[in-house]
């Protein structure tokens, strides 16, 4: 396996970068979408209940099946991969964002309004910063989850380490097949750990000292 690794280090590194870049970009996009939807829904218990329900159901859809379904309209390539990864990534973030925003102390919101902050300013300066640690916890869960899902996206010829795993699996028994699968899988696990550490650091840097526990 070591020889395999050394031989292909260029390709593996390239695919690792592709993988991480797909995941990071998709998670960033998903965070934006999830916060947007959460902001629109958290004030109404009915709509936020609906959002939570959808997020729970969405997570039960097998990623393989969703990718297959996306093939019909979008064909092979990066588009269905991105759509699927963003979809899955946004679900845990959405749930946490709704919970986080709903959990902001109402007396603080009243206080903000009471000193003359507009609705928008209250959201941006008070509610979102206070909900942020909870949102970020969702982002961490999402990132871990879609590291794996992004690998499955290789099935529709998306970028990343998944292609290593799939090509290995399809040639199982052949030369280096097992090595390819193992290297792909281990790389994904390691990268997931690294990303998680990065997210913890991001959390430290973006959470006010006043609300850190």
């Amino acid at each position, binding site marked *: 396996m070591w020889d395999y690794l050394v031989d292909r280090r260029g390709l593996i590194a390239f695919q690792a970068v592709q993988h991480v870049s797909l995941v990071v970009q998709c998670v960033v996009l998903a965070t934006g979408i999830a916060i947007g939807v959460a902001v629109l829904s958290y004030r109404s218990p009915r709509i936020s209940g609906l959002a939570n329900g959808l997020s729970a159901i969405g997570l039960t859809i097998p990623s393989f099946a969703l990718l297959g379904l996306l093939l019909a309209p979008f064909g092979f390539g990066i588009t269905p991969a991105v759509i699927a990864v963003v979809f899955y990534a946004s679900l845990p973030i959405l749930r946490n964002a709704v919970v986080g925003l709903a959990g902001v102390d109402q*007396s*603080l919101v*009243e206080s903000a309004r009471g000193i003359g902050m*507009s609705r928008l*300013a209250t959201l941006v*300066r008070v509610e979102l910063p206070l909900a942020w640690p909870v949102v970020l916890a969702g982002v961490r869960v999402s990132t871990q989850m879609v590291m794996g899902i992004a690998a499955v996206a290789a099935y529709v010829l998306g970028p990343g380490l998944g292609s290593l795993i799939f090509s290995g699996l399809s040639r199982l028994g052949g030369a280096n097949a097992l090595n390819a699968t193992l290297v792909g899988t281990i790389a994904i696990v390691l990268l997931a750990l690294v990303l998680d550490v990065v997210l913890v650091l991001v959390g430290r840097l973006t959470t*006010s000292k006043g*609300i850190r526990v």
Partner: protein
Amino acid sequence: MSETIAERSDERPGSGPTAEARHVSGVSIRLDGVTKQYPGQRTPAVDAVSLEIPAGQIVVFVGPSGCGKTTLLKMLNRLIEPSGGTIYLGDEDVTGQNADQLRRRIGYVIQADGLFPHMTVGTNVGLVPKMLKWGKERVAARVDELLDLVGLDPETYRDRYPKELSGGQQRRVGVARALAADPPVLLMDEPFGAVDPITRQRLQDELLRIQEELGKTIVFVTHDFDEAVKLGDRIVVFDVGARVVQYDTPEAILADPAEDYVADFVGAGATLKQLTLTRVGDVELRQPQVARVGEDSAPVVRRAQAAGDQYVVVTDRRGRPISWPSLAELSRTSTVPDTVDEHLPVVGLHSTLNDALDTMLAASQGGVVVTGRDGVAGVMVVETVMAAIQQTRGEAQG
């Protein structure tokens, strides 16, 4: 409005600092048939209230829980939109104004947790000036000025987060934030609830001191009738639906409750309630010998002996009292020590005799140090309180 204040000082002859015609920066508030009907409720929470709150005075709302005090207060800054009626600030009808802009002109302090935990004390206090687009330096200067005003050292507290403050300090910051843009009107909804009695009393004293300086129009909601008597230039007693049962000075309400309901509310100990009407500044104080930290002890001891005192009041370099050692203790030292006595009983000139008595009892001492604007104003002893009780008793019986 100066007329009302002059009238007021006649009512409380010699009532010390509050009696002087004070500087007024507030504006009057007039409610005309203000009503709030919450959807799905049969009777309005606030039913056609008309009320005039004079400029520069503290008007306290009291009444049973659920009678509509908070609803009425929040209609003043339109956190709750009235279903009917008109509200005037000065001569200006504010019922149709942009609510956000209106609120920047009205300070607002709520019971607890009003400070934003993710912002420093300085940021919290500077929020409204910043919204009003003051320059950076002006905001910073204002923040320091306000922290000073509420008795918090800016250097120490500016960059702290709310969770790093005690409950009482948080309330002070809340008041500072509300005052930041120098609003003519301050709305306070049970701002000193949920703090211990001694801290509460200090906060009340501070508010009175600040008010003496600033002369805002303050509307203050409380459950505590003693607090109402202490703080209020006038008290509004409400019943369900925010019906105004009585609107008068504390003295008048205590002396002559308008309905049985008010008498019940005021409570049976009305004679002792007079203790709440008399201020520490109204009675004669003893003048102790005052020594500064670091002075030579011997001359201080001699001075006190000459005056026939048993103790000396020691102040820190800013003139604030920190301890009152006996002459025996002091004569064992060469310079006046800077030990801070955590339990030193201290009240302000605005404190009531009731507060002073509470403070003495809490500290198990027979007297309290009284502080005024420029440091120590004197010492009040328990005998003075007793004499006041005797006197009001005599008046009540005779």
